[in-house]
Each structure stands twice: as structure tokens, then as C-alpha cells.
């Protein structure tokens, strides 16, 4: 069902959100694991997620957005702001983590959150936005294609 989900609101993450966000990061990593065994999560995924998101919230070169329903964190989008060395435009916003709780999916919440993030990035001078996700995640492939993204770099891996 397309359309705007009235239940959720978006805002920048705060330190008080760290516990809830760490939970969402861990969920996202477990979802990624479903697509590829090379994305198998570590045993201490919760601890790693907590310290990772805790520093991201404080990092000026990160945008961490929160989707909230009735005071409860139900979605996360984290993007890194980078300078491209060889290509232009130079300032890139790379979406690294994007997760919405199951019952808020398919109601337009994801699209709206992406647009919020892009607006946020534009305001700080970002000119190109990119997204990282498992190659086998067809849902993400379709989602970004619908939003006008196209594949630009492939990362191939093998265990050695």
C-alpha cells in the first residue's frame, strides 16, 4: 500500500535512543545474514551495534535519523558523509543502515524516511546519495530502483 504512514514521525537521533537503535542495527545485520552466508553476524552483535551506533550519534560526519511512533523507536537510517577523491560531485551521503520494524513497512514509511534523509543531506551540501546493502536483497534493489537509484559499484567477495 503506497502512501504516507501517519503513525510515524522522523527526527535526528539522540543519545537516549542508543539502546533502541542498537537493537535495530542488530536486527538489520541478522536480516542481511539471511541473504548471504558471508554476512553471518558475530556472536557479540548486540555489543558491537551499541558501541557503533553510540559513536555514530555523536559523529558530525554521520546522519542518524529515527522513525518514531508514539515515543517508540520503530526505524533507523544512518548515512555517512564522505568526500569522493576522484569523482564529482564530491560530497556524497552513503546510506549504510536502513531498517524499519515489520509492521511499519509497505505503508510508505520507508520512502518518506529516505526523502527526509535526502533533505537533511542536501542542507549540508551533499550532492550525491548512495546506498549499501546485500546484493541478494531484491527488496532493496527494487526499492532503490523505484527511487531513481542505479548500481554504480559492485563489491564481490570470496572466503579465503
Amino acid at each position, binding site marked *: 500500500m503506497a502512501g504516507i504512514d501517519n503513525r510515524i514521525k522522523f527526527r535526528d537521533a539522540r543519545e537516549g535512543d542508543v539502546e533502541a537503535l542498537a537493537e535495530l542495527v542488530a*536486527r538489520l545485520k*541478522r*536480516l542481511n545474514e*539471511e541473504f548471504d552466508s558471508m554476512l553471518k553476524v558475530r556472536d557479540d552483535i548486540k555489543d558491537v551495534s551499541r558501541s557503533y551506533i553510540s559513536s555514530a550519534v555523536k559523529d558530525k560526519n554521520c546522519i542518524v535519523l529515527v522513525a518514531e511512533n508514539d515515543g517508540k523507536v520503530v526505524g533507523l537510517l544512518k548515512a555517512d558523509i564522505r568526500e569522493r577523491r576522484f569523482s564529482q560531485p564530491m560530497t556524497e551521503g552513503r546510506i549504510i543502515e536502513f531498517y524499519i*520494524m*515489520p*509492521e511499519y513497512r509497505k505503508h510508505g514509511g520507508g520512502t518518506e524516511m529516505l526523502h527526509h534523509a535526502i533533505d537533511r543531506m542536501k542542507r549540508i551540501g551533499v550532492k550525491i546519495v548512495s546506498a549499501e546493502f546485500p546484493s541478494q536483497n531484491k527488496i532493496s534493489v527494487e526499492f532503490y530502483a523505484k527511487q531513481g537509484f542505479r548500481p554504480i559499484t559492485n563489491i564481490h567477495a570470496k572466503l579465503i
Partner: protein
Amino acid sequence: MPKKDDKTERLYRLAMRYSKFYGGKIAVMPNVPVRSLDDFSIWYTPGVAAVSRAIEKDHNLSFELTSRWNTIAIVSDGTRVLGLGNVGPEAAMPVMEGKAMIFKYLGGVNAVPLTVNVHDQQGIFNTVSSLEPAFGGFNLEDIESPKCFYLLDSLRKSVKVPVWHDDQQGTAGATLAGLLSSIRLTGRKASQTKIVFLGTGAANVATARILAVAGFDQGNIIMVDSKGILNPERDDMDELMLHNPWKYDLAIKTNSERMKGGLEDALKGADVLVAASGPGPDKFPKEYIKGMNKDAITFMLANPVPEIWPWEAKDMGARIVATGRSDFPNQVNNSIIFPALFRGALDCGASAITDEMIVAASSEIARYAYENGMSEEHIIPTMKEWEVYPNVAAAVARKAVGQRIAKRSMSAKKFHDNAKRIIEGSRMMLSALIKSRLIKMPPQ
């Protein structure tokens, strides 16, 4: 494996002996007289060429000029046979033959067992699709979950004849019939009845889906599996989204209170428990039933032993108890649904079996029970009350006509009489063969 009782052991022995004696349970029989070999030139070449040419021009005539109108395939890959599990297509054959026999005897439907050596979902999809020209319908049987969900949904969309998965829809239809009677007996309203499902296999998932069509509120449903109450915050949600979207969907649509916890929590204040979770007894502490509302309804559907013995459920306050067994009252049995449902769908030339047609079948069964001495010990008719079959066939056919998916329309009375004639004919044919000793009595 549960300990087998003497009665079951005896039935095992007889089934082995008789199967050897008869060499299978079904046969293909001509449907036309052969007065002399000259008749072959009508039934076969050259006469038959005219029939072929007519069908070539209009494929729909294959439902009038050949036995396709009354012939279905029972398709199984043998991956989830009875309580036996993945026994493979050869070993699934005796079960499918038995199913074909029931189709013929109770519904007058010619059913051909086809156990296939194809196991991936796309492969089975292609196999069934390619068989469409020969059959008037498909009964998918004993195919493992979640493959069976994918197959039913995708085949329903692409094939132009009825497709049915008995383990899902047959059980859902029979359960719904029992539920409709039970809530009537206990003075409940469908929309306000709180239902807990224990087990999230094919049958319970299908029942939870069909309840929404039958006037129940899915928000009042709570599904419980080995990980506890199904809710959209569970850790396994993303895994379900990718591998079992049907269960994932129910996690979002059911449990509007977003309750978490286990079966004991779910049953507090519930009206109905539908358990299809694996053989009992003592599958869960029977005291949990005490937490349910007054006049609780419990369906303990595991075979061969129900999750909780019926008398124990009653001791804990259950007013109505149903099981999957014929030796206890209130057997929730697919055989009360599928022969009549196909009879109705074939008689009207339905292009599908819709959820609404299943609800029509269940409602008719509940109505029949109500008018024929419904009680706490008799919420659904048994297979012996065979008059219910033409009634159900007529209700299903009329629903298909109303939904504009039927090729033929008649009054409910005509559909009923037609179905009755076909089913009676099928029973009479068998008894004539037995009387003339062409079908022998089993060896002593």
C-alpha cells in the same frame, strides 16, 4: 513416534494384507457401453476425430465432450505425508489412492493420484500448469510448508480450473464449520470471539486466514508457536518475511493488542483454542485451559493423539472439545469438506475455489448440524450423514455463480439434485460391483 495401540497395529496389518490382495484401491473404468467392437469406431477412431476437431475450435467443449468436467488430479511430491514426513512420491501413492477413493465414494469425483518426482516449488508449479488441459481441477496434497503456500497462491492465480490444497483449505474449512457451530452453541458472536491458535503449520495458518472472510476479527486472533506468541516485534520476523510471508503477514494482522509471552498468557481470557501443534497427550499443561473464558471451546487436532485428552480438557472447564479422531465426538475431518466442495465446483464449472466458497461450505455444514440435532457432542456431521454432501455442493456452486466464476448456473435445488444423483450413482456403482462379486470381499 507415539506408542502404537493394539487397534492401530491391527489396522496396519489389515491394510498391508488387503493392499496386496487388491493391488491398489482404484481403477479406470469405461463410462460408455461397448455393444460390440464396432462401437470402437465411435468412441475411438475414426468417430473421435470429430470430437477432437470440435474441441480444437472451442477448448471449453473439453468440459462437455470428455470426462474432464468430473476429473481432477491429486498431486503430491510426498514431502509431508500424514504424520510420516518426507517419505517420497512412491510411498505417498497409497495415501493418494485412498484420497482418490474417498473423492469418488463421497463426492462422485474421478480423482487421479499423481505423485511426482519434482520437489522445487517452480518445478511443481510447472508440472501442475502443464497438466491443466487434462483435468477439471487439482487437489494438492501432503506438500511441505511453506512451499505449499507458494504453490496454492501462485497456481490459484495462473490456472483456470479449481486448485485446492487440502492440508490447508480442507482443514481450515472443517475447523471453520466446527467453530461456527461451537460459537452458535455457546451464544458467541464471530466478530467478538477471541481465538488462540497453537501451532503455525499449514492448517492453522490457512484457518487464521479464512476466519477473516467468515466474519471473525483477525485482531482477536493470537497465534502461538514454539517461540511463543506471534507478534511483529519478534526476532524472527525478517526471516519469516523472506521464507514464510504468510506467517509474517499474520504476525502483523493478528494480535491487535500486541501481546507477548507464551501459550498461558495467550489463553487468559480467550474463547477458543485451536491446537494443531503435534501429537499429545500433555502437549502443554492442561491447567492453562482454566484461564480461558467460561464455556471455552477447544479443538485439539493433532493426530494420532490430541494435544490434551478431551476428558481432561473438559475437567479444566472446556465446554466443547473437538479432535481429529473418529473415535471421539466432534471429529474435525477434511473428508466432510473436500468431496462436496469439489462436487459443487465441478458441477457449476467454477474457474477457482475461492475463500468465499470455502466459507459457504463451512456455513452449510454448520447449518446442517444445527438442523440435525447439534449438541456439544455433535458440532459437525459425520461422514455417515451423507445427505450433507449434496447440500454443501449446492451451496458452493451457488456461491461460485454469485461470484461470477461459474460456467453453468442452476437453482440451488437443481445443483443439489444433480450432486445427489452423481454421488448416489457412484455409491450404487460400487455396491453393484460388490454384489456381482467383480469386487471381492477381503480375505478372512
